[in-house]
């Protein structure tokens, strides 16, 4: 075990129940009151290939998977091949001896055992949590409880199958990885689930999306819970339809969110510009994957930072923020939905596959979530309602149909009523109104938390988005005396919070080939990196490797 952490890895072919086995392992650790981080690695295919889930745990909050597992359960030969060299010192590999002839580890005929029951192909995955339960010291009864909770169906076959694996592992390695209990059980959420629930907590009425990894599980989660939550969910014909429907829904008064990845976001930009002109509140989740173009659909990268910060043609107030942890994803989704309604402009919640699809134990303060409320027209308006009333802070009160008043939203430049204009003075007036809105938004953000700081050590490390999780774990695992600075807001960029770092030579960590974040820091905040630690192979950082890279950069 590396430091205070324990890492379990289960691998097999797609369709063998690998994801379920990994999720069950995560639940086992969480039920012990421990912190959990679960990383699913899967290619873009449905059957075959190689899937693995890595689950790391500690008695504290843990924010990354570890690349070197303490316990591996390899259901097929490829998993054994791929992962046998990764084993941590003192680690154990449990191999399906029906698939692996001469692997280095504890061979158990998992397939032969499974064939004693119907549907053996579906059952092999159960071996994962059964083996883990034995190795970490669960009693036979506790193991049976776990399998009953996790698999629910077909228990009369799953329990004896799990018991045979449990027995074999116990016999071979005892309870070598006995784990202590943590302080209390916490829920486990993926980043996408946290985003969905955060938006729901802010009063989301409608979610629209066209499927695209890694954003799709927001759509799936909300579609599954739509009636329970009271959120209307729809999957239209394209991202273009999605974004334009969202603007229409906002015009009718519905708190609306959309979600996509880079390619879909490109298609949505026209409508985001419409939202900028019409002053329509729309929140868009951009969950990045390696690009350009189709790129690597089921892996991670931070290559869309520049793209996200400059969405939409024309000049209008933009708002982009990116959560650093799954817990922050919940808070930030609520906050951004609230801000788009307060300031009537589109916003982007930028995240990456590593946060979207990784799961971790969270401490959520649901009651503290922001609530989306528009500034509404109250009472009579002498001279009639004006959709684009030229107010001091640029925010025009809203009104929704049905109403006796005339409510005109528009993509054209317009007068206060919302009627098209080409008059020069009128154009300037509306540009200035939108600019004042941006100023008002800036003033608001200056009073809000826009940058997170962790620790107070000598070495300054800048990072953002999902890489924050990797950096925090690296600093903890590597015992590095650092201050980690994470701008949550990326547009407007919170330069007022970063002034103290101007002229410092921090280390920047990001998952981009070009180093876009380092460039942004230099251009906007005059913070020039002494070293930029990058990773852009689609995989998230390993905390131990990252700690090593940071140490080398400090020297």
């Amino acid at each position, binding site marked *: 075990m590396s430091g205070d952490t324990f890492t379990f890895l289960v691998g097999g072919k797609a369709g063998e129940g690998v994801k379920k086995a990994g999720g069950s392992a995560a639940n086992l650790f969480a039920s012990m009151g421990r912190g959990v981080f679960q990383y699913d690695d899967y290619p873009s295919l449905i059957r075959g290939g190689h899937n693995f889930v890595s689950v790391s745990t500690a008695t504290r909050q843990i924010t990354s998977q570890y690349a070197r597992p303490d316990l591996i359960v390899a259901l097929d030969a490829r998993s054994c091949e791929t992962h046998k060299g990764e084993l941590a010192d003192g680690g154990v590999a449990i191999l399906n001896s029906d698939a692996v002839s001469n692997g280095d580890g504890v061979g158990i005929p998992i397939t032969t055992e499974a064939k004693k029951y119907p549907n053996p192909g579906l059952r092999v995955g159960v071996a994962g949590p059964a083996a883990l339960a034995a190795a970490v010291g669960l009693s036979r009864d506790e193991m049976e409880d776990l399998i009953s909770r996790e698999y629910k169906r077909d228990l009369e076959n799953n329990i004896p199958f799990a018991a045979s694996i449990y027995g074999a592992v116990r016999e071979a390695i005892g309870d070598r990885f006995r784990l202590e209990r943590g302080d209390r059980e916490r829920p486990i959420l993926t980043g996408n689930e946290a985003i969905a629930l955060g938006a729901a907590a802010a009063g989301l009425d*409608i979610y629209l999306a066209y499927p695209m990894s890694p954003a799709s599980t927001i759509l799936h989660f909300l579609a599954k819970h739509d009636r329970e939550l009271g959120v*209307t969910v729809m999957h239209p014909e394209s991202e273009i339809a999605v974004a334009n429907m969202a603007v229409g829904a906002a015009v009718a008064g519905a708190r609306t969110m959309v979600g996509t990845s880079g390619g879909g976001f490109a298609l949505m930009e026209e409508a985001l510009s419409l939202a900028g002109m019409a002053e329509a509140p729309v929140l868009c989740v951009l969950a990045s994957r390696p690009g350009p173009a189709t790129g690597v659909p089921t892996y991670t990268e931070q290559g869309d930072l520049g793209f996200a910060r400059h969405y939409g043609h024309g000049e209008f107030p933009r708002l982009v923020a990116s959560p650093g942890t799954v817990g922050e994803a919940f808070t930030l989704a609520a906050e951004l939905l609230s801000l788009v309604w307060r300031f009537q402009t589109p916003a982007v919640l930028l995240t990456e596959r590593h946060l979207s699809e990784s799961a971790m134990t969270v401490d959520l303060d649901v009651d503290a979530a922001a609530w989306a409320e528009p500034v509404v027209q109250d009472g009579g308006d002498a001279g009639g309602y004006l959709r684009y009333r030229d107010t001091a802070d640029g925010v025009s009160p809203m009104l929704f*149909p049905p109403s006796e008043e005339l409510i005109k939203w528009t993509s054209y430049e317009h007068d206060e009523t919302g*009627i098209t204009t080409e008059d020069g003075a009128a154009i300037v007036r509306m540009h200035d109104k939108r600019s004042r809105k941006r100023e008002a938004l800036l003033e608001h953000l200056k009073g809000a938390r826009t940058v997170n700081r962790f620790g107070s050590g000598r070495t300054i490390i800048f990072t953002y988005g999902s890489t924050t999780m990797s950096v925090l774990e690296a600093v903890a695992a590597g015992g590095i005396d650092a201050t980690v600075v994470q701008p949550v807001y990326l547009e407007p960029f919170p330069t007022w919070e970063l002034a103290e770092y101007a002229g410092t030579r921090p280390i920047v960590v990001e998952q981009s080939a070009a180093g876009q974040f380092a460039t942004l820091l230099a251009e906007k905040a005059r913070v020039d990196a002494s070293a930029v630690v990058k990773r852009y192979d689609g995989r998230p950082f390993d905390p131990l490797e990252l700690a090593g890279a940071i140490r080398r950069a400090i020297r």
Partner: protein
Amino acid sequence: MPEDLVTYAENTWCPGCGNFAIMNAVKRAVGKLGERGVGRERIAITAGIGCHAKIFDYLNLSGLYSLHGRAMSCAQGMKLANPDLRIVSFCGDGDAFGEGLAHMMFAAKRNADITVIVHDNGVYALTTGQRAPTSARGFKGPSTPRGNTEDPFNPLVLMLEAGATFVARGYVGKLAELTELIVAAIEHEGFSFIDVLQPSVTFNDTFEEYNASVELLTETPATLDEALAAARRTDRKPAGIFYRIEKPSNERALYGDGNPVADHPARDERLAKVKAILGTA
């Protein structure tokens, strides 16, 4: 005709443009709907971009002046948010069958409860007369100086095949009938489509041709096949309702009698639901 349906915006359509007739028919239709209990405050509109879309500024009705080809998507979003509204989407033939073709096909397919009125003049007038998806082969414009090399779409056939539950053709030369079509389309629950033959006096003046070829349908065809046959006629241009069937709208299929905006939860209620899901996460 209710005069309060006009805004102060200066009208810049060409004198004699067919758009005037469409706007007159809409104003009359709104008046008639008011008499039947659908007040103008419950009618919301969207428009695409083009000459047709100026109707958005001229009509004293609430809504969204959308983007080229996206008016019907914005309209669907409005309806999805508040199904108590009656949504009318004005589109040009370039909006509906060029930039926004996919949105039209899917709006029809899912039976979104909106009314799309296509100002079909067979030309891109506002952008100085380029060919449109409904321009005839051989049509000459600045982008096709030697003549259009493509055959036109048949909008009625497209919408019938896509699953529209109300399909009609109107003609600006038949104002009373056009008014009735608009009333019937707005009253229809589900996707209503009216292709309005509308000459562009400046770029594609088809008044004479249409006056000679348009004839009113004496009755609504009984089946989809009959409707398609009528829509495919080339000897004459039948006008009227080609097809009308009852089918659950997209919104009703999604949430029954629900209404996302009206049913917007109280904060405590929503937070309790979020906590309940977290309790099982």
